[in-house]
């Protein structure tokens, strides 16, 4: 069997592990336009902030490719899939034949056009190379402007805080981290980040850039030495789209991760849409664990096993300046439980007698996985001691039978 994987990040690695779970001998080839050993993209901010060495950027042990018998074609971009003859064509016109193909092309930064932007020059913050470029440019005390107060923008801000205290973040939304936090949580986090010296302009955007100055729509101006555009990302769907696969915002797959409309082609990771069980709709869940799991499922199915990817929910675990957030699921409940204690915040979202989502911050993040499991396993809260659980996430709240299953059996 001849497996080809486009993409060398979590989905691709997951796919390798999924294939090797059963097929120890089939040929696996990974194609990536980045020239690096597989590395963890979420670590680029840590690397930039000098919290992680080059060595520790590696997502897997140094001997991963050898141990798993993987060929790599690094630094070359796949430009076309010829599904009819089962070939991938690379940017040097070379061809790679496949029996089974995984597309794990990830996403790319979305940079909205803005007058003067191209002239003034900017950085994005997705890849190792992005971080390297920023690191090369940044000088102690440099003025940094970050457009976008989402996960990427704020992680960049945290990293750059190691170099300068002169950081400004602007976002069109009226709160930071608007995709994962509600208003209370966002307010707490914003205050926390501001306490480190980072300035925010919210509910506004850049009107235009003039030299190293941004003119905001609210009339303010902001000088900068370094500009980072972190407004959003877009999935890399072109290969599939061109090959005739079904694409919405992201690539559409079935539960086996096979791309709809194509045969022997699978897709996983940020370039795909997943079925979010917490809301019952397809959406892009662009997070690393999701990418890995999808890749693994794809790999297993590519190697002839029969697995389905279910129970995907949005989930995030992230921290800024030592204040941690763990969130999951949807925030559209019919009931909620909320506790605020200083920087710590907890909100549990309940819908139809089940936990559907939560936001945890600060000291409340401990044992968050217990809540996650409630969402994923769709356990009716009436089956458990929710009064106990809402304040003390633990197995004590579960029925004896459920608990014995968790504790006394091998899983």
């Amino acid at each position, binding site marked *: 069997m001849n497996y080809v994987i486009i993409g060398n990040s979590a989905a691709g690695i997951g796919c390798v592990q999924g294939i090797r779970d059963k097929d120890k001998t089939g040929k696996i080839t990974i194609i990536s336009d980045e020239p690096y050993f597989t590395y963890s993209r979420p670590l680029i901010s840590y690397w930039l902030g000098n919290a992680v060495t080059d060595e520790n950027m590696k997502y897997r042990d140094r001997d991963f490719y050898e141990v798993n018998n993987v060929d790599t074609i690094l630094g070359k971009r796949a430009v076309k899939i010829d599904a009819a003859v089962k070939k991938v064509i690379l940017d040097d016109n070379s061809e790679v034949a496949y029996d089974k193909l995984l597309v794990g092309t990830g996403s790319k930064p979305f940079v909205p056009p803005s007058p003067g932007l191209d002239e003034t020059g900017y950085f994005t913050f997705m890849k190792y190379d992005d971080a390297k470029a920023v690191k090369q440019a940044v000088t102690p005390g440099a003025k940094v402007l970050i457009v976008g107060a989402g996960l990427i923008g704020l992680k960049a801000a945290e990293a750059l805080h190691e170099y300068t205290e002169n950081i400004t973040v602007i976002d069109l939304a009226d709160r930071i981290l608007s995709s994962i936090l509600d208003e209370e949580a966002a307010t707490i986090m914003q205050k926390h980040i501001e306490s480190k010296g980072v300035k925010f302009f919210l509910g506004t955007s850049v009107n235009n850039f003039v030299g190293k100055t941004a003119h905001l729509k609210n009339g303010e101006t902001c000088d900068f030495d370094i500009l980072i555009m972190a407004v959003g990302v877009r999935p890399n769907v072109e290969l599939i789209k061109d090959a005739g696969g079904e694409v919405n915002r992201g690539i559409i797959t079935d539960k086996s991760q096979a791309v709809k409309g194509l045969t022997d082609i699978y897709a996983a990771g940020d370039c795909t849409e997943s079925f979010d069980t917490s809301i019952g709709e397809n959406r892009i869940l662009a997070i690393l664990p999701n990418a890995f799991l999808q890749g693994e499922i794809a790999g297993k199915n590519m190697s002839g096993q029969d697995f389905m990817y279910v129970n995907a929910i949005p989930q995030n675990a992230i*921290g800024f300046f030592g204040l941690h957030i763990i969130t999951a699921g949807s925030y559209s409940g019919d009931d909620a439980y909320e506790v605020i204690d200083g920087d710590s915040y907890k909100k549990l979202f309940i819908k139809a007698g089940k936990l559907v989502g939560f936001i945890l911050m600060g000291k409340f993040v401990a044992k968050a996985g217990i809540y996650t499991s409630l969402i994923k396993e769709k356990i009716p809260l009436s089956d458990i001691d929710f009064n106990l659980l809402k304040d003390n996430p633990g*197995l004590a709240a579960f029925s004896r039978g459920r608990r014995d299953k968790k504790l006394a059996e091998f899983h």
Partner: protein
Amino acid sequence: MKRVYVNENRCLGCHLCEYWCAFANSGEDSIVKAFKLNKDAMPRINVEDSGEIHFAVQCRHCNDTPCVKACITGALSVDAEGLVSIDTERCVGCYTCVLTCPYGCIVIDEKNGGKTVTKCELCVKNAGGEPWCVKECINGAIVFEDRSKIL
């Protein structure tokens, strides 16, 4: 592989396993030193108490290893036998594992301000042999057994 299991009918909630666990992972040669001299001693096992219910919980070393799959750095790994261990040097404290562990068994290392997480590694990195929570349980509530065959 042998794993640690607790028999809730036998667990007394004495919490001694937590102390022995903290000692075992402290690198000290006595439990007194672990608590009197070592500021970082911290258990990987946690006893939950709720009224008359008591039970100790630590990493189940489960088969799906959601924590390993979710780990963004590769710090968490599982060996061929199923032992889930953590390389704290590679941990950046993102807590994705905390988010995914359905047993609440990833322990945030409060002793270093939460910069990393830690977890039960069945004492393979310290004294080895039978884990200390098992060895020191005063009521035989915590056992070290291979139950994977039953699966």
